[in-house]
C-alpha cells in the first residue's frame, strides 16, 4: 500500500501528462504482481469497490474522534477521505502493518457492506496517514487523480516496448490483476486475444491544408462528411455486442439503444450521433449522453443515439481490414441492407476536383458537419495515425475577439510563465460593460508570444490570488474555437469547444472586442 499511496500522491500533484506517465511507469515496473494489477484496475475504474458511503465513514470516525473537532477539520481540509485519513488516531509503532493492495481488493470484493466497514476501520488502525488516504480512496472507489484508462495504457506501452494500439487490441480480454499483460510487457509472450467482440485499433487521419491538396490527385480519394459526433467501433460477434470509443474504452452500457440496433454480425467503424428520424442533433445533445454511464428512459427518448457507419472491419466472420477502401466500401454498402433504422451510412461525396470539394466543405447541408474526410481508395485499414491514406479537412474555426481577464501560472516547461488565460466579451456597452468570461485558452501561441503575454500580465496586474492574477482589461486576443454550446454552468450561458488563442491583437482597443450577443448568434438552434 505504501508504493500505491506514493503513486497517488505523485499523481495528485503532477500537472504534466508526461510526468504522470513516468510516475505510472515507475510504479508498474517496481511493484510486484498482483498489487500492480489491482492498482491498475483501480486507477482505470475497473473495480467495483464503492463499499463505503460517506455516512458510513462519518459514523466510523465518530467512534474515534470528537465530532466538533472533526467538523472544524473537515471545514478546513475540504475533502472527506483526506480529513479522515489525517485525523484518524495514529497507530502505535507496533501496530503498523504492511497491507497490500490485493489484500484490500480481494477482501472488499468478498465483503458485505457492514463487513467492509469493519475491515476498513481495522485497516485504518494499522496504516500510516498517506496509506490511510490511499485505502479510503480505494474503498470508496473515488480515485480522482486524473488517470484515464487511456493514460494508463500509454504508461503500460512505455513500460514495455509495444505500441499502445497493441494493448488496446487485447485490453478487453484482460481481467485484473493482469498478470499475463505485465509478463508480456516485461519480455514474455503476448497474451492471446481473449475478448469476445474485441476492439480493433482504429485508423486515424491527419490534417491537410488546401496547399497540400494541390499535390494530390482527386481521383485517388473518396470524400465523406466529417461528422461532429464521437468515433465509435460497433462490434457484434457471437452473442456479444460491444460499443467502443476510439481509444478502446467499452461504452456499451451508456448506449443501450445503439447496442439494441446492432443486429448484424461484424465490426463497423462509424460516428455516434444523436438522431431523431433524419434530424441529427448537435454535439451538446450528445454530451448529455456521454456524461451518463446508465441513461434513464427519459434521456433515451429525448436524445436517442444512432450509428452512422463509414467503414467495415469484419463481416460474418471474415476480416476485411486488408481489403482496399474501395472494396470495403462496396461490402459496407451491401451490408447496409440489413441495418435497422438506428444505423445508416455516411454517404460518399461526388466531386471532380479540389475546388468543388472546397465548395461542399464551405457550405455543408447540416450543422453537425465539421468538415470533410478524404480516404484513399486503395488504403487498407490499419490502426494508428499514418500520414497519407486518410486526411481530415476541417472547416475553418469560428473566431471571436475577446479581452484577457485572468492569467494563471503554468507548470513544467511553462513554470514561471503566465500561460493559462481566461478571456471575456462585452455584455453591455464598453467601457463599463460588464465583461463576462466566456472561456479559457492555454495554447495557440508561440514561445515568443508566450513571453510577450507573460510580460503583459506582469505589467497589467490588478489583483493576485495565489497563482492567478486578474488583469487590467486591455489586451484583445482572437480566439479560435470549433463550436459553441449552451451551458447553464457558465455565467455567460455559453461554452466553447477547443478554444485557443489564434492571434494577439496588440493593435486593437478593448472597446472593440466582440459582444456576447454576437457570440450567442453562433449557437445552434434549440432542440
Amino acid at each position, binding site marked *: 500500500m505504501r508504493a500505491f499511496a506514493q503513486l497517488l500522491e505523485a499523481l495528485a500533484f503532477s500537472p504534466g501528462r508526461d*510526468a504522470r506517465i*513516468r510516475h505510472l511507469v515507475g510504479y508498474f515496473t517496481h511493484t510486484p504482481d498482483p498489487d500492480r494489477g489491482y492498482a491498475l484496475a483501480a486507477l482505470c475504474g475497473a473495480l467495483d469497490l464503492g463499499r463505503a458511503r460517506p455516512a458510513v465513514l462519518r459514523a466510523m470516525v465518530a467512534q474515534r474522534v470528537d465530532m466538533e473537532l472533526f467538523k472544524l477539520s473537515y471545514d478546513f481540509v475540504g475533502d472527506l477521505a483526506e480529513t479522515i485519513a489525517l485525523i484518524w488516531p495514529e497507530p502505535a509503532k507496533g501496530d503498523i502493518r504492511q497491507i497490500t493492495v490485493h489484500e484490500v481488493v480481494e477482501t472488499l470484493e468478498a465483503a458485505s457492506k457492514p463487513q467492509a466497514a469493519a475491515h476498513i476501520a481495522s485497516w485504518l488502525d494499522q496504516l500510516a496517514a498517506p496509506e490511510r488516504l490511499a485505502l479510503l480512496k480505494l474503498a470508496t472507489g473515488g480515485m480522482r487523480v486524473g488517470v484515464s484508462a487511456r493514460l494508463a495504457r500509454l504508461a503500460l506501452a512505455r513500460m514495455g516496448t509495444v505500441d499502445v494500439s497493441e494493448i488496446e487490441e487485447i485490453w478487453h480480454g484482460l481481467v485484473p490483476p493482469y498478470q499475463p499483460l505485465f509478463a508480456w510487457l516485461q519480455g514474455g509472450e503476448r497474451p492471446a486475444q481473449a475478448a469476445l467482440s474485441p476492439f480493433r485499433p482504429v485508423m486515424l487521419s491527419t490534417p491537410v491544408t488546401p496547399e497540400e491538396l494541390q499535390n494530390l490527385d482527386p481521383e485517388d480519394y473518396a470524400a465523406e462528411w466529417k461528422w461532429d459526433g464521437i468515433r465509435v467501433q460497433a462490434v457484434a460477434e457471437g452473442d456479444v455486442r460491444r460499443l467502443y470509443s476510439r481509444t478502446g474504452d467499452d461504452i456499451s452500457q451508456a448506449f443501450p439503444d445503439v447496442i439494441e440496433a446492432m443486429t448484424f454480425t461484424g465490426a463497423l467503424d462509424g460516428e455516434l450521433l444523436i438522431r431523431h428520424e433524419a434530424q441529427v442533433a448537435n454535439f451538446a445533445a450528445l454530451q448529455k449522453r456521454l456524461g451518463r454511464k446508465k441513461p434513464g428512459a427519459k434521456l433515451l427518448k429525448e436524445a436517442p443515439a444512432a450509428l452512422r457507419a463509414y467503414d467495415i472491419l469484419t463481416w460474418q466472420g471474415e476480416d476485411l481490414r486488408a481489403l482496399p477502401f474501395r472494396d470495403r466500401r462496396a461490402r459496407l454498402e451491401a451490408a447496409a441492407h440489413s441495418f435497422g433504422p438506428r444505423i445508416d451510412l455516411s454517404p460518399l461525396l461526388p466531386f471532380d476536383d479540389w475546388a468543388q470539394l472546397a465548395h461542399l466543405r464551405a457550405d455543408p447541408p447540416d450543422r453537425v458537419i465539421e468538415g470533410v474526410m478524404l480516404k484513399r481508395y486503395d488504403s487498407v485499414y490499419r490502426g494508428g495515425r499514418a500520414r497519407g491514406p486518410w486526411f481530415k479537412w476541417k472547416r475553418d474555426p469560428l473566431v471571436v475577439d475577446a479581452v484577457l481577464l485572468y492569467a494563471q*501560472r503554468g507548470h*513544467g*516547461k511553462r*513554470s514561471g510563465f503566465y500561460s493559462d488565460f481566461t478571456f471575456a466579451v462585452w455584455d453591455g456597452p464598453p467601457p463599463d460593460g460588464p465583461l463576462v468570461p466566456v472561456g479559457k485558452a492555454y495554447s495557440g501561441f508561440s514561445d515568443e508570444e508566450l513571453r510577450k503575454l*507573460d510580460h503583459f500580465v*506582469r505589467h497589467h496586474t490588478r489583483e493576485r490570488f495565489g*497563482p492567478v492574477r486578474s488583469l487590467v482589461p486591455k489586451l484583445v486576443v482572437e480566439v479560435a474555437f470549433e463550436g459553441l454550446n449552451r451551458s447553464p454552468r457558465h455565467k455567460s450561458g455559453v461554452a466553447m469547444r477547443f478554444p485557443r488563442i489564434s492571434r494577439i491583437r496588440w493593435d486593437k482597443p478593448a472597446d472593440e472586442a466582440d459582444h456576447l450577443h454576437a457570440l450567442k448568434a453562433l449557437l445552434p438552434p434549440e432542440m
Partner: protein
Amino acid sequence: MKKPLIELTEAGIYCRAGDFYIDPHKPVARALVTHGHADHARAGHSHVMASPQTLDIMAIRYGEDFCVTQQAGGRDSVQVGDVSVRFIPAGHVLGSCQIVIEGQGRRDIVSGDYSRVANAACAAFEPMPCDLFVTEATFALPVFRHPDPAGEIAQLLASVDAFPERAHIIGAYALGKAQRVIILLRQAGYDAPIYIHGALQKLCDYHKDQGIALGELRSASLERAQARALRGAIVLSPPSAFGTAWVQRFAEPVIAFASGWMQIRAHARRRGVELPLVISDHVDWPDLTRTIEEVDPQEVWITHGREEALMRWAELEGRKARPLHIAGYDEEPE
C-alpha cells in the same frame, strides 16, 4: 489567585508591571521580541530586548538602526520594572525564545512561535511550568500531524532521482525554513552544492557565522543559460519568487514547497506546487496539546491560528482558555 501579569492592548500583549510589550505590531517605547520573523519583530521601537541572535537578525533585516537602544536577553533573570524577565529556547528558528515573566508570586510565559521537533539551527524548546501560557495555534487542528522531516527530504531526493533533468526549486521562507531544509538535506547525505536565491543569502551567511554548517551554497542569481544547465540541482528560493520572472530561467523545474501547510492537498494545489514537502517550524496538534499538558498552566491564551479547535480541546480537557484574536500575525508564512 493574582491577576495575570500581561494583558491584551491595541498594540499587542502588554505587561503593565514592567511597562513593556511583547512582539507588538506597532512602534512602542519598550518591546520584548520572541524571534526574528517579520510579523513578530518589527522595526521602529525605541528599546528592544531579545536574544542576541534575534537582535542580529533584526539588524540584518532592518539595518543597524532598527531601534534606539537594545538589550540582549537570556537565561538569567533581569529586572524590568516590577517584574523579572528571562528568555528560554522555543525551538522555532535560530534565536527564537519564550519570554518568561515572573512577579507578584506568579509566572506567565509568552511562547511566541515554537516547535518540539529537533532542529540543528536552534536550541530545543524548554517546557517550563507556569500560571499563564500564551500559545500560537497555527496548526491547531487534529489533522495536523507533521511527518518526520527526514521522510520528506527522502521524497525530495527520490524526485531528483526520478527527474534528473529538472531543477527542483523549493519554496522556503528566508529565516529558518531555508536553513532547516539545507541542514536536513546535509543530514540525509546530500553533499552537492545547493543553490540559493539572492533573498536567502544574508540569513544563510548569518547561520554560518553562528557556527551552523550548511555545506557549499552557491548563488542562484544566474543567467538564463547557466540556470538552464542546472539539471537536477536543488535550488532554494523564497516562495514569493515563484511569481517572478526569475523562475523562467530554469528549464522545466519541479516546483516544491516546504511548509506545514503542505499537509493539506487543497493548500498545495492552490499554490501551484508539484512536490509538497511537509516541513514545519511550528508545533503540530499532538505537540501543541502535549506542551500545554506539560507546562500545565492555570490558563491558556491563544494568540493566532485555529483557536476554535484549541478552545474545543480545552473544553474537553476542562482547561481554561481564551482566544486573543491578535491581528497582524501572518496566517500564511511558516
